């Protein structure tokens, strides 16, 4: 059953949202489940064609693993090479419950930290599985030749990260995401060489093709020729990342976009918790309107850097001229136990609060200091350079300031989206045969993701979950039939996409897609960003509606559809952002509580987020009804058996 916004908000399980969590004790669910899954006969695997969209950690790992198993894999990416997927930009590290540091880590502790970090809005069973397979990920990556940081004796070394009191983060200088991605990419290219995986680069997925109620193919635009192409398969795996680019300015890449997921949503796939977005605290502050993106610096910087603002509002002195007693190390003051290492949402809001109170620094007043003076004194410049050299260099290149001499200026920026397509325990959406992996799904991070957990989830889904659950689906629900793109559903889907392309090209108004995107980003950042309230959200919904109407009247897309046309690509994505942005606001409005990255100003206690477990301990899954402004709300109640719900406390 479903309810609308106005109706009773009590959590009632929707039949569309059967989580399919296996029975049994939490610790052995995954092992038992794996042991009883149906398998596809090795000889039959090559008869199955699997479409994998995306080549990041989740997509690349999935395509490589499925290729190794013998499936016929078609792998698509938007860039010119699979190695460019935005997973490449993750810097800090990847968590795993190896306990190599002998500091009391365990699968349970990683599971507990992740649930708590997610503010008790994630599914226990999924998170436990994630913590379990985390250890296999490190093994797999080390075997691939990923050059993790090592001790002199040759063993792997760890660092600590926000939201945890143990050292469980593995890293490769400041380029962990890149190195893990190159590991997955190398496995993928090995399968391309073995011809189990066929690679399609410079393709953007623009629609899902459904046959008999199942996901059976996709429509992509060949970004070089502009031609629409269709591909058929027995299952479609989306590993297309999150929707952070709705904010326009974010730490995402310029090509990162949620179009693939959104078009699936319009086929009936539930979009879960769109209001859970993560604002990362350590980004380089914005300087002007021209800016195309914000650059993130790994939060590992908070291991040794101290965050502060002047005690006196409006203090315009240079940072090094402000004496120690006139500095407010506000994170250490407010959270003595975790200090500078509180989770991202808390650190971000604390910085915003200081800036709102007029204590912000820099030209815009929208920045706080991240200071390495004490670390350099304690460790020496050389050690600091070894740990963060590339980040310091990047900071200097962008700002023209030397962070060894003056404190960095940082400000939060949109970074990651915890929400995404709703999936069950098998990572399958409510559309049979359509799976979502990595950031594209909603499942493991609840309302807030801990640092170094995105890489973990992407690889867990790709290497160790989907190879099992996909097999189970195929063996039980999907025969290896001979469906081809000759089927009329493919032609109809392509025609629908062509119609939209033609429309975008024909409007010829006076405003570029980027201008609309920028305008939308401002509305969403101001009202559905770090702090949200009822009035602002209602205003945002109206403004987005108006902007969307204007878009379809005034957008100007130059050039033709039959060639490489960045403007046309952007236009299609902006059309989707203008819809998804509204859904984010609708979801944020309906969730009358504060949790994780979703901070409703009406629901707080002493400046801290106040959850309402009575009313909102559920996953909100939104179903498209044909009208973007009135989606249908479905609920999956969250049950906590191993962990007692409590207010998060990092003090």
């Amino acid at each position, binding site marked *: 059953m479903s309810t609308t916004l106005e109706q009773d908000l009590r959590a009632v399980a929707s039949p569309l949202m059967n989580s399919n969590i296996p029975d049994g004790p939490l610790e052995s669910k995954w092992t038992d489940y794996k042991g009883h899954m149906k398998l596809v006969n090795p000889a039959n695997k090559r008869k199955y064609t699997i479409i994998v969209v995306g080549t990041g950690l989740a997509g690349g790992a999935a395509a490589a*693993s499925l290729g*190794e198993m013998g499936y016929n894999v078609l792998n698509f990416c938007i*860039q*010119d*090479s*699979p*190695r*460019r997927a*935005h997973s*490449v*930009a993750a810097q800090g590290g990847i968590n795993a419950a*190896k306990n190599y540091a002998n500091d009391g880590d365990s699968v349970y502790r990683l599971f507990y930290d992740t649930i708590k970090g997610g503010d008790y809005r994630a599914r226990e069973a999924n998170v436990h599985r994630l913590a379990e397979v985390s250890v*296999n990920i490190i*093994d*797999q990556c080390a*075997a*691939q*030749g*990923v*050059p993790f*940081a*090592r001790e*002199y*004796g*040759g063993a*792997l070394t760890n660092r600590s990260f926000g939201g945890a009191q143990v050292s469980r983060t593995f890293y*490769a*200088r400041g380029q962990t995401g*890149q*190195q893990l991605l*190159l590991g997955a990419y*190398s*496995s993928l*290219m*090995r399968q391309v*060489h073995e011809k189990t995986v066929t*690679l399609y680069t410079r393709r953007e997925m623009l629609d899902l093709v459904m046959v008999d109620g199942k996901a059976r193919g996709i429509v992509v635009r060949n970004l070089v020729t502009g031609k629409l192409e269709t591909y058929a398969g027995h299952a479609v795996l989306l590993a297309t990342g999150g929707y952070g680019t709705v904010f326009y300015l974010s730490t995402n*890449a*310029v*090509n990162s976009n949620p179009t693939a997921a959104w078009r699936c949503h319009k086929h009936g796939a539930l979009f879960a918790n769109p209001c859970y977005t993560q604002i990362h605290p350590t980004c380089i502050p914005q300087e002007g*309107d*021209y800016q*195309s993106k914000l*650059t*993130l610096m790994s939060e590992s910087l908070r291991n040794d850097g101290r965050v502060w603002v002047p005690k006196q509002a409006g203090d315009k002195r240079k940072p090094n001229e402000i004496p120690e007693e006139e500095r407010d190390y506000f994170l250490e003051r407010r959270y003595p136990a975790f200090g500078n290492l509180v989770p991202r949402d808390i650190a971000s809001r604390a910085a915003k609060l200081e800036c709102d109170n007029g204590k912000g620094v820099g030209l815009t007043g929208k920045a706080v200091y991240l200071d390495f003076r004490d670390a350099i004194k304690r460790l020496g410049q050389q050690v600091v350079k070894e740990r963060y050299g590339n980040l310091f260099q*990047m900071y200097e*290149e962008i*700002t*023209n300031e030397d962070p060894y001499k003056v404190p960095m200026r940082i400000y939060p920026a949109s970074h990651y989206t915890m929400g995404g397509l709703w999936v069950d325990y098998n990572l399958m959406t409510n559309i049979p045969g359509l799976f979502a992996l990595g950031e594209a799904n909603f499942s493991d991070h609840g309302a807030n993701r801990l640092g170094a957990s995105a890489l973990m989830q992407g690889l867990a889904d790709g*290497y*160790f979950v989907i190879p099992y659950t996909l097999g189970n689906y195929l063996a039980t629900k999907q025969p290896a039939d001979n469906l081809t793109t000759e089927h009329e559903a493919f032609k109809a889907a392509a025609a629908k996409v062509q119609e939209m392309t033609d429309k975008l090209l024909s409007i010829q108004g*006076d405003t*570029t897609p*980027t*201008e609309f995107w920028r305008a939308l980003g401002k509305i969403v950042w101001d009202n559905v960003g770090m702090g949200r309230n009822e009035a602002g959200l209602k205003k945002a919904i109206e403004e987005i509606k108006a902007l969307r109407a204007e878009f379809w009247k005034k957008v*100007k897309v*130059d050039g033709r559809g039959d*060639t*490489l046309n*960045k403007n046309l690509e952007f236009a299609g994505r902006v059309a989707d952002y203008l819809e998804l942005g509204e859904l984010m606001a609708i979801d944020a409005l309906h969730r009358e509580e504060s949790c994780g990255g979703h901070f409703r100003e009406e629901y707080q206690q002493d400046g801290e987020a106040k959850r309402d477990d009575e009313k909102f301990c559920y996953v909100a899954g939104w179903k498209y009804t044909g009208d973007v402004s009135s989606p249908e709300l479905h609920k999956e109640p969250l049950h906590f058996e191993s962990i007692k719900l409590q207010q998060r406390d990092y003090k």
Partner: protein
Amino acid sequence: MSKEETVAKKQGSRYTVRVWRQAGKDKPGQLVDYQVDGIIPNMSFLEMLDVLNEQLTKEGKEAIAFDSDCREGICGMCSLVIDGVAHGPHSGCTTCAVRMRDFPSGSTITIEPFRAKAFPVIKDLVVDRSALDKIIAAGGYVSVNAGAAPDANSILVGKESADRAMDAAACIGCGACVAACPNASASLFTSAKITQLASLPQGQPERKKRVKAMVEEMDRLGFGDCSNHGECEAVCPKEIGINHIAQMRRDYLMATLAP
């Protein structure tokens, strides 16, 4: 135009940008001059092109096609040869990280695509670098299936070896080494992957097979010969050294002398 934008345009600098325009693969191309205003020193080079493209779109002209993605110097998608130098005048960074403060106000900047037979132009400044993927597919990996790995700490790797591997692994596959090489050789790219894996115990079993396969694939794809100009190392955004090329030559020699 908002008030802020008007102010920014007044404050910023003007540049003449000469850009290679080419409608498509195998079509004729030429350098075309454009004026762009309102460029401020901290703008990135690609943001300057964004501004120019917005301007062109408004004028009803076709925007300049160029590749970019992460815009923080790690994905390797951006390319461009700026005034004859791959990734522009600033050493140790990609085009997306180059700032306009590196160009004197009022100057003329020439932008050409990466040039090599193995990198055909797709449109304007966009080239096809899939040849680099093919070199990796030929052997740039450790053949280990998911699930088959032993405990990570059962393979000990000395810090020096791990650091050496990481130095090489930092390659972002942008292809600037090829673009900058007077001979359009892909030696730096290929050797970086070869030495990364040759520095680690995990890479030993396939070491000889790998170096042969990758070198031969590199040759087959039409990259040129390396003449030790070292220009590749100088433009490499990750400052990967030509010492890796020497290592590749050693390994290839050993692999063919003692197969």
